[in-house]
């Protein structure tokens, strides 16, 4: 057992940093451009270590995000669980993709995530229906993805996370 899991702290640290980045205040005009850090980190780990970071992990991560955001409990949890499911079922193909193709998948996944949370917030009356500018967050996430991928892969390799 000890042989199989190694370097869990790297995963937890990456999520901690993602939470920090997620709640750092942005100026008003840049609000729509915020990358979805938690979802991106989750996609990476689901792709790289599918036996470590699964749907349950994603769900708990989403629950913490709900507390941090002060949104309805279970809202981000549901969205992240679905994202994790898609990433897990695609993980072998994702590994083969070039970074541009990966960015495309990230764009679609984050877009889906943003759309789902937006709908649920409207349904729960936590937000009012607005224009679709918030989807720009998916674009910025896809733009940042290649760098984040390289950084996280480097961390995973040098600390031997299994």
């Amino acid at each position, binding site marked *: 057992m000890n042989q199989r899991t190694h370097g869990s702290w790297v995963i937890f640290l990456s999520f*901690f940093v993602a*939470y*920090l980045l*997620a*709640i*750092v*205040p*942005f100026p*008003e005009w840049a*609000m*729509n451009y*915020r990358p979805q850090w938690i979802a991106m980190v989750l996609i990476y780990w689901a792709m790289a270590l599918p036996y470590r970071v*699964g*749907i*349950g992990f994603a*769900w708990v991560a*989403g*629950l*913490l995000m709900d*507390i*941090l*955001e*002060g*949104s*309805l*409990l*279970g*809202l981000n*949890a*549901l969205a992240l*669980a*679905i994202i*994790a*499911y898609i990433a*897990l*079922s695609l993980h072998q193909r994702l590994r083969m993709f070039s970074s541009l193709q990966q960015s495309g998948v990230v764009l679609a996944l984050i877009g889906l995530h943003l759309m789902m949370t937006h709908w*649920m*917030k*409207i349904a*729960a*009356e*936590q*937000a*009012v229906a*607005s224009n679709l500018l*918030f989807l720009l967050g998916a674009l910025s996430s896809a733009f940042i993805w290649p760098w984040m991928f390289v950084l996280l892969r480097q961390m995973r390799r040098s600390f031997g996370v299994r």
Partner: protein
Amino acid sequence: MSLEYRVAAFVVLSVAVMFADSRFDYLDRLRYSLGFLTAPVYWVADTPARISYWIDDVFVSHGDLIDENERLREELLFAQRELQLLAGLATENNRLRALQEASANVDGRVLTAEIINISSSTGSRRVLINRGATDGVLEGQALLDAHGLMGQVVEVLPFTSWVMLITDSRHGTPVQVNRNGERAIARGSRGEVPELELEYVPDTSDIEVGDLLVSSGLGQRFPKDYPVAEVTSVVHDRGQPFATIKAKPLAQMDRTRHVMLLALASNELERSGQSGIAPVWVDNALSKGDKRLGIEEQIDELGAEPLEEVVNPAPETLGVDEPVPSETGDTVPEDPAAGQE
């Protein structure tokens, strides 16, 4: 395949949790406990701001300090002079109110707080403050800055609390025009600009650009007579039954960091006192509570709902704030220095 079953299970679980969280309060305890887990994230995220404030405090020249000290002392002198007048006026006011059998103004005790984060979701305008249940914060308390009313506490976590700003589109603030006492409800605008819109104001009402709006105390959430906003535009459209009136909040919503939390009015305390949270710093208001219990019961009988997120005063509660006989005719507000923590 097992992956599908697991995702289906978690989707069902999420929906159940969401439903339970929105309809019942079983999950408040879970929310509160998870708040302990998330506290360090806020603490670390706030570190840069704290360090920059610390640097501002430490690396400041002696001369600047002397200048600032002098300026502050001058301001204090002016403020104290006005306070002296105010104490006299307050006594006189309370005595007159006692004659009219109106309620004595609840003198608010305050707790200073700092805004440590703002809501990241675009649909709502909320801020996070660095005071929580351990400091005795209760849901429904009003938040002020040096210029005016900012919002009210909507969720209390162990060390932090979420405050919904008055500019949130789901928030309504009962206000009145300071000049003539005309009442209205100021709702947060739905647009991009953080401002207030006065709802259902008849075209004939006497509200002009530049009027100061103060909190009316109706709805029993916000204390009376705190400045809220200044009217910026009044449009009379003959095709519309109501005038379109916009106002700019006086509180510096997006610039200030230092804010004040106001103690609940005593009737609110009655309600929250039953939930078992012992407030540490609002004890003096409790003594006035027993007289108000009657009003509470009356409201319950009338079937007025407890005002949750949107504090539009229900029509039944409109007149309730006024006719309460005061026990002490001449309550002098406390020394402001003693009221602060």
